């Protein structure tokens, strides 16, 4: 990678400022990106879906989809990519950084909102800004999909109950004819007001170069 060293160094700087990762972390992520994409420049859905460990994950599809979702790129676009480059990959990963001790209150709030938006986008598949009952049902069904022979009605029941709860807490005085369209982002945020999202939703990113460790068994 000699010739493009300076080029990637420049790109790394850019990414560091945009996402807040350290240089080491970005390098490690780049290494992983190349591993996953089999040394191509872009990553496709199949690359991600072929990860063995993901096979048991009930929400695999949503996770993969989230990487290709344009809304997670902070550029106010909608729709989805067919393939993503390293930049987009890192952008999505940046949603899972833990808060640093030096962050101010506003930065923490912004990070929290960011993470909640990520979650929201995962549920709101038709991009209309609301999680409708259908979409919520789908979420619950996916969650339960790996767990044996679950009746469809159960998933529905759970989703309905959850939806009812959101409706009741947020719009307390609904008349019998009112229609609750779907969970908006504000209501979604409300659900998590007790939860410290900024610390819960994070993954430890490696600071150490994993190339020196046998791949597949690296631990943080």
């Amino acid at each position, binding site marked *: 990678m000699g010739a493009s060293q300076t080029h990637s160094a420049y790109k790394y700087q850019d990414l560091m400022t945009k996402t807040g990762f350290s240089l080491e972390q970005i390098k490690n992520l780049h290494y992983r990106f190349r591993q996953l994409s089999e040394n191509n420049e872009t990553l496709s859905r199949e690359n*991600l879906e072929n*990860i063995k460990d*993901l096979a*048991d*994950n009930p*929400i695999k599809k949503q*996770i993969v989809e989230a990487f290709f979702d344009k809304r997670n790129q902070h550029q106010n676009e909608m729709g989805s990519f067919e393939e993503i480059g390293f930049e987009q990959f890192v952008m999505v*990963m940046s949603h*899972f950084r833990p*808060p640093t001790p030096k962050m101010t209150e506003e930065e923490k709030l912004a990070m929290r909102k960011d993470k909640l938006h990520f*979650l929201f986008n995962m549920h709101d598949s038709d991009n209309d800004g609301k999680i409708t*009952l*259908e979409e919520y049902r789908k*979420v*619950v069904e996916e*969650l*339960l999909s790996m*767990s*044996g*022979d*679950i*009746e469809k*009605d*159960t998933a*529905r*029941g*759970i989703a*309905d*109950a*959850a939806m*009812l*709860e*959101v*409706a*009741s807490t947020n*719009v*307390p*005085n*609904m008349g*019998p004819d009112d*229609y*609750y369209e779907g969970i908006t982002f504000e209501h979604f945020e409300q*659900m998590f007001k*007790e*939860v410290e999202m900024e*610390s*819960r*939703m*994070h*993954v*430890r*990113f*490696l600071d150490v170069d*994993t190339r020196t460790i046998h*791949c*597949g*068994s*690296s*631990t*943080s």
Partner: protein
Amino acid sequence: MSQLWSSSGPRLTGFLCVLLVVSAHASRDAGDPHHQNSSTTHRKAFPVLSFNYDHVKTPFEISLWILLALLMKLGFHIIPRVSSIVLESCLLIVVGLLIGGIIKAIKQTAPVLDSKLFFLYLLPPIILDAGYFLPIRPFTENMGTILVFAVVGTLWNAAFIGGMMYGVCQIEGAQLGHVDLLSCLLFGAIISAVDPVAVLAVFEEIHINELLYILVFGESLLNDAVTVVLYHLFEEFSHAGIVTVGDAFLGVVCFFVVSLGGVMVGTIYGILGAFTSRFTSHTRVIEPLFVFLYSYMAYLSAEVFHLSGIMSLIACGVTMRPYVEANISHKSYTTIKYFLKMWSSVSETLIFIFLGVSTVAGPHAWNWTFVIFTVILCLVSRVLGVMGLTYIINKFRIVKLTKKDQFIVAYGGLRGAIAFSLGFLLTNNEMKNMFLTAIITVIFFTVFVQGMTIRPLVELLAVKKKEESKTSINEEIHTQFLDHLLTGIEDICGHYGHHHWKDKYDAYVKRWLIVGERSTEPQLISFYNKMEMKQAMMLVESGSAAKLPTLMSAATLQNIQQKGVPSRRAIPSISKSREEEIRKILRANLQKTRQKLYSYRRHDLVMDPFEDNVSEIRFRRQRAEMEKRMSHYLTVPANRQETPSVRKVCFEPENKVYTYDDSESPRGRAAQPSPRLPDAISLLSKSPQRPNQTSALRAKGSTELRAKAPDEQEEQDQVKLSRCFSDPGPNEEEEEDGSFLS
């Protein structure tokens, strides 16, 4: 009424005290009458009434003591003002003092808090109760912090106190010159450990937030290993007289052996217990005993090898719990919960009373300097230790500990009966009495002064209190979702974080330790079912719509239904006959069913509505309410496709919980819009394929009551009446197990 009680309470206890004293007297000359009878020459009349106290002496006295302790406890709670100001543990100690005083005044020998009694009988129930119900998530999340406090903090305390006391002992004029370094260190080791019993007693009443509670309490549990090692170490050394480097090194090794060994022993017993519970489906009655016995064996086994018994007990409870709870019946779970609470409550009460009695009884050697300095040094070392450690710990924590938190952690470091018992165990130590006096003073100080002032201080500092929030279904969904999401991201990143390992562990271990298909049931479903059942019970209990849980407040399913989805046949309303049919079915459910239920966590004990002694009136009232509600919901406005009966969530739970017997429900005529509309709530009929079961029915898999219009197949009423638990587990043990709704 309460006045009557409050006046009779003390009177009764006074009477019992007298009885106790009399029995102590009587035990001395109980043996004689028999001898007299056999040695007299002339024939005595047949003794109609004889007095033989010796025969029952021990159990009698034990029972009397326990009864006394419990009556005291009862008395405190009846007098409202007292219990809000003074801590229960303080009151109990005072009572102990009084009793000790009385016994001493009549020159009897008082029972002392014997170490064997304490460690083998009084302590385990408390620890088991704490360990079994330990909130796991905060515990593991803060494990690093807790360990640092427990290990490093206790070592620091022991060293500081021991060292400084030695310095104090060198002061001229204190007459303490004979106390050598090792004895001081031993004393430091005994007094340095935060006591779980005292912490529990105090913290339970102040409802502090979970983080602080788990920090202090976790520390008090885990420092047992350190205490055990230090105690044995210094005791050995103080007999030997000299310490070599090799000995110190062995001490460190010993620490690891003691703690890890204890945990290992506990885990082994825990797994055994979990495995055993897998097969108890035919003998539900003895299930709780397995839990208790395995745990107690874990404790005793650890004690055999001088490993940390407390850690073993905690490890056993924590390991066993998730699997046992999945396997045992509901009633067994309730039994376990109540027995543990009961035993730990009795133990705690007895411990405090005995502490008071021992204070009065024990030989004391009061030395002003020693005692005062001990108290001061305990406080100082605790504060310094906490502050210093927090400074270091905060570098590694994401959620930092604030000054307020530190203060509470430092202030909550109470000493208790463990220190006393350890002191009591000292042998061949001429300073034993002095040490005991000092220990008792520290205990009194921490429990009385710190214990009583911590509550106003908590208020004053506005420390965050425990939030009494019920977990909502949304939170549960998202907790699961987040777990899976994070695992997925970790997998994509390529490194195996703890989410990954936890997943793998869950997948493999559960298969072995949980019976049947329950191992694959996702947590979300069991949570949901739990919640539904809880609400159902609340509904049945209260019988009135006014008390409906907040989950279903104003919104009905209509509100969230998709609007404007065309129905194939627009049905204005449910026909009368349909309504009637629904009513009949639901009514039948309410009265008849029994069903085997899962064991649930945190379940409120609700009266079983199906027990025979439920009054008819109550039933009628409930029925009336139900009818009212049903009529409210059964009217369907024109364009909605909906749901006759139900606010699905509200109503359903009642019926979800109850299965009903084979109601050959007459197929109603009313049709519902097509099932294409996914959430048409329909009245499901028991699908014909399911094997018919006896009238005391439990559902396996889903029971569906489908009321089909006889000729219109595509329209099916789908009021889901019961998605009963996919309880594939061992079957309808209808009679023997507690398949009650209780």
